[in-house]
């Protein structure tokens, strides 16, 4: 009962206080100002954050990472083939019956073409050009009838002196430009196409996409003359050409030992 009385008293007291007070416009205004300020600060911070997110997402869209192992999936027109089991070696006298032109995987000469930013002026033998792809290089091939003048210079300027890039003319190429990395190909019409830079960024030395991580693009000393490399052969491969599954080692008893993983014998 006592609390009830108190409550009534408080209520009436408050009522009278409120009645006697003017409407709290000052409080309302102060509250609105504070809210607007807080809202403004938040809005600014959010805007900054949002811009930064977008900028970073754009910057790393084509950067290989654990959560983005093949950024070329974002590039329209890329053809992918798994050549993991087609990596045998052939010698200088052999030809490989490649399944794609230009080839972007399969058996290859044990001598790799220099891919340390070399612009080859003449077409180079396929078997040598495939090997650098295994080392993580990107090969820009172009049809010399279609790509000339400024367009050609633009391509050359991308490649010259840049490691894990190489460029060569490719006679009778069915598109003006074809980009190759191990297991990936993109054929294009124009040297201005932004996908060229995207492809290079996504796949050059991408450690998730080529089998010989860390492979060099410098030629083994004494094995390769960049000024007169083995010439391109445009004829169809002969019947005895090395098949896509061939080369050394073949599945002929030189299989590696089983690699099941026992824990090492402990000595302690």
């Amino acid at each position, binding site marked *: *009962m006592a*609390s*009830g009385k108190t*409550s009534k008293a408080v*209520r009436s007291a*408050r*009522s009278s206080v*409120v*009645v006697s007070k003017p*409407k*709290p416009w000052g*409080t*309302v205004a102060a*509250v*609105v100002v*504070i*809210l607007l300020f*807080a*809202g403004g*600060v*938040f809005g600014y*911070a*959010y805007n*900054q*954050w949002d811009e*930064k997110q977008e900028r970073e997402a754009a910057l790393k869209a084509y950067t290989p990472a*654990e959560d983005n192992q093949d950024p070329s999936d974002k590039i329209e027109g890329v053809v992918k083939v798994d050549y*993991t089991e087609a*990596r045998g070696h052939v010698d200088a006298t052999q030809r490989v019956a490649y399944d794609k032109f230009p080839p972007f995987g399969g058996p290859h000469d*044990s*001598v790799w073409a220099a891919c340390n930013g070399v612009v080859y002026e003449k077409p180079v033998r396929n078997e040598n050009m495939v090997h650098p792809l295994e*080392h993580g290089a990107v090969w820009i091939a172009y049809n010399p009838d279609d790509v000339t003048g400024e367009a050609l210079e633009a391509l050359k300027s991308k490649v010259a002196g840049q490691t894990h890039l190489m460029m060569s003319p490719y006679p009778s190429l069915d598109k003006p430009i074809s980009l190759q990395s191990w297991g990936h190909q993109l054929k294009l019409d124009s040297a201005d196409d932004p996908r060229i830079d995207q492809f290079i960024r996504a796949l050059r030395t991408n*450690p*998730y996409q080529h*089998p*010989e*991580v*860390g*492979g*060099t693009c410098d030629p*083994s*000393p*004494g*094995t390769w003359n960049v000024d007169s490399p083995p010439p391109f052969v445009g004829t169809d491969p002969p019947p005895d050409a090395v098949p896509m599954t061939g080369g*050394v*080692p073949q599945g002929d008893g*030189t*299989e*590696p*030992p089983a*690699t*099941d*993983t*026992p*824990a*090492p*014998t*402990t*000595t*302690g």
Partner: protein
Amino acid sequence: MEEVPTTPAPATPAAATPATAPAASVAADGEPRQSAGWSRILVAAAAALAFVLVGATVGLLLAQSRTPATVIPAPDSVAVGFCQDMTVHHRQAVRMAGYVRNISTDPAIKRLAFDIETGQIDQIGRMQGWLNIWGRDSLPVAGHMGWMAEASHGGHGGSGGSLAQMPGMATHDELTRLESLTSPELDTLFLQLMLRHHQGGLPMMDYAAAHAEVGVVRNIAYQMQTAQDEEIGLLTHMLAQRGAAPLPAPS
């Protein structure tokens, strides 16, 4: 006291149910109460909103200043153990390959040696870089391959699982002999030692490809395994071409 719950306590309904309480207050108490109720509600709601906005802003700023969480593997983890041991394993391959590349007169051997030397130096650089970023020892500190034994036994037991020497490693005497030879004996011994070396490294690569705590380490272990598998076939073939037999594979 039993009346307390029914007592209208003006502040409570405003705070608890800001949306519905005012209407009730107005209906029950008329104009004066409405004014008092609204200003309290306004202040309380505004304070809450301002609080939320400040919190959100602070959160955004914190999120911006923080780098993304990265996994730092423990000193006794598979990732660290693999990088340390494989650095040592690779270094010996680089030593043998570098010597042979300089001294051999067989072009195929020189080329193979150059390929192994350059590729494995690059891989050592990656592994050393990761260890450096993680703040871990760059080289093994208590024997080799304990990271495999420990994990397979599912415990965190001490140093009991370590080996003094990794499988496939050439002995001091073998290295001395290699570095006393010239082609073609040099080439044959190089192929034999490198084949056994590759074979010895595979279990570590297999294990790390499956169990390393860090994705980049799992990937490099997998890629090493893929590349060295192929190279084992090549080494075997080159030995056969030169009429020599492989050394016994490491157990």
